[in-house]
């Protein structure tokens, strides 16, 4: 089953790339615009750090590392598994029918059904920011990839949980989108500025801390305790999202809206 899903995954990626390159100019301009967008944001923080030096112990290198993790994790989600964003629409319009009728893992099929090619721009930003962060090493790079992957799992899981609300309530698309955007915004703030209640909110309710706080701390000074909390937290969230989806799917009521993939 895993081998079949893997083969399917690559075939779908080929189709996604083919779709993106129907208009070659668009694909490259979109990636370029994503890079411009990211670097204008990073430039703003660079100016702030150039003026202030540090913010509650964080310097620009720490910020660069945080950007690297958040860009990499988000790009993995958006390029390969963005179908979860479309899930509320699929549920409300009865478009899950096609996936349920085929011998695929429904969640895998839905997740890979949509991709945004422009987010390769985020992937490139992530790599670049890692190399300018000042925390570069050969083994560190592989650890950085591991942390990015786990942060991606968390990003995916949060989006999936928000999307599964549509199995139970109507018109949850906007609410889910807004909460997810809050998560992305929090994931791009220096983790050191949060304390007290905000830190609890930051780690447990909108778990952006698992994208910004832990990975940066682990890359700077490895601690087994933090590593275990990070791995357990992101994996736990991921498993929770799968349970949410499985439970929600039993409440799927289909629909008759005309539609095309």
């Amino acid at each position, binding site marked *: 089953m895993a081998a079949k899903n893997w083969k399917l995954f690559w075939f*779908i990626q080929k189709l996604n790339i083919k*779709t993106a390159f129907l208009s070659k100019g668009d694909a490259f301009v979109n990636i370029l615009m994503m890079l411009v967008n990211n670097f204008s944001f990073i430039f703003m923080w660079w100016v702030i750090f150039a003026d202030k030096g540090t913010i509650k112990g964080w310097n620009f290198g720490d910020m660069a590392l945080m950007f690297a993790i958040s860009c990499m994790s988000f790009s993995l989600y958006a390029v390969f598994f963005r179908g979860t964003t479309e899930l509320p629409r699929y549920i409300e319009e009865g478009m899950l*029918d096609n996936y349920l*009728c085929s*011998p695929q893992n429904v969640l895998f099929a839905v997740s890979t059904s949509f991709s945004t090619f422009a987010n390769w721009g985020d992937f490139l930003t992530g790599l670049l920011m890692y190399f300018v962060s000042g925390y570069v090493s050969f083994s560190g790079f592989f650890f950085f990839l591991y942390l990015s992957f786990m942060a991606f799992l968390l990003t995916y899981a949060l989006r999936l949980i928000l999307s599964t609300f549509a199995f139970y309530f109507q018109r949850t698309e906007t609410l889910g989108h807004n909460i997810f955007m809050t998560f992305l915004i929090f994931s791009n703030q220096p983790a050191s500025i949060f304390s007290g209640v905000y830190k609890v909110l930051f780690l447990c309710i909108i778990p952006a801390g698992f994208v910004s706080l832990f990975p940066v701390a682990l890359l700077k000074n490895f601690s087994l305790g933090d590593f275990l909390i990070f791995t357990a937290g992101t994996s736990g969230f991921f498993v929770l999202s799968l349970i949410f989806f499985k439970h929600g799917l039993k409440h799927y009521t*289909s629909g008759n809206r005309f539609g095309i*993939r």
Partner: protein
Amino acid sequence: MHNIIEVNNLTKKFILKKHQKGLKNLFHPAYQTLTAVNNLSFAIKPGERVAFIGPNGAGKSTTIKMLSAILYPTSGEARVLDLVPWDNRQQLSYNIGTVFGQRSQLWYHLPVQDSFALIGKIYDLSEITFKKRLSHLVRLFEVRDLLNTPTRSLSLGQRMRCEIVASLIHKPKVLFLDEPTIGLDITAKAIIRNLIKKQALEEETTLLLTSHDTDDMEKVCQRVIVINKGKLIFDDSLSSLRDSYLNKKYVEFTTESGEKIRQEINTRQTSVKAALDKLVKDYHVTDLTIENPPMEEIIKEIYARGD
């Protein structure tokens, strides 16, 4: 012969939020239960071509969705190819095909053959099996010229032909067709009907077809199941349907003066012979034809009796 589809007391209820004025829905939501399928039972033998008809909201699509493992039932049992659909979704899907007239399984921007290739991969077909099968279906459904056309550029009739090819790539034993001719013009409908029947006969595929077009039923199927408000109201052969509900004939005749007259004969009250004797006595008839009522009228009557 062993049944390929068996449905026993199948029921599906939906819980819907009632519309209420103001902000009542926010604080005190009220719900109502809608019974879409109500204790439905029937069985289908391998190779049968069955029309599954009923007015809007009768529960046709809901039944098909339960049989194809899209929906869980509220109660009752069903077996398709000896499998309980909702418990064996993936296993069952290797042997069933579905065509939903309102929905596409083809990728909108990509050439049709890319969607076919993806479906081949989804069903685990080897490259050789896939090519052989596709080549056969392409010939049968005459879609060779459409293979390189993106789905968005296909006419509705062309798209439907491709949808059916897509649903047959894995050579299913049972094909569920939910309004496959919806929105098509007369010519396209005729083509689709012929192709569906041809394929079913050639590969002995069991068909369960829902439609509002009685011609779909007459041209493709041997048997009719009629449901209304989720309940079964008729289940027999097409000829039996005609016999049970055929209690009138239409006589159209031309008089000597060239006037054309159409009269209805109620065969329960008077015989056709008696009616014609009277007609010949009353008029100077130069031409005469006797017709059965159209199938649509028969169906309308079944619905009315079902109510």
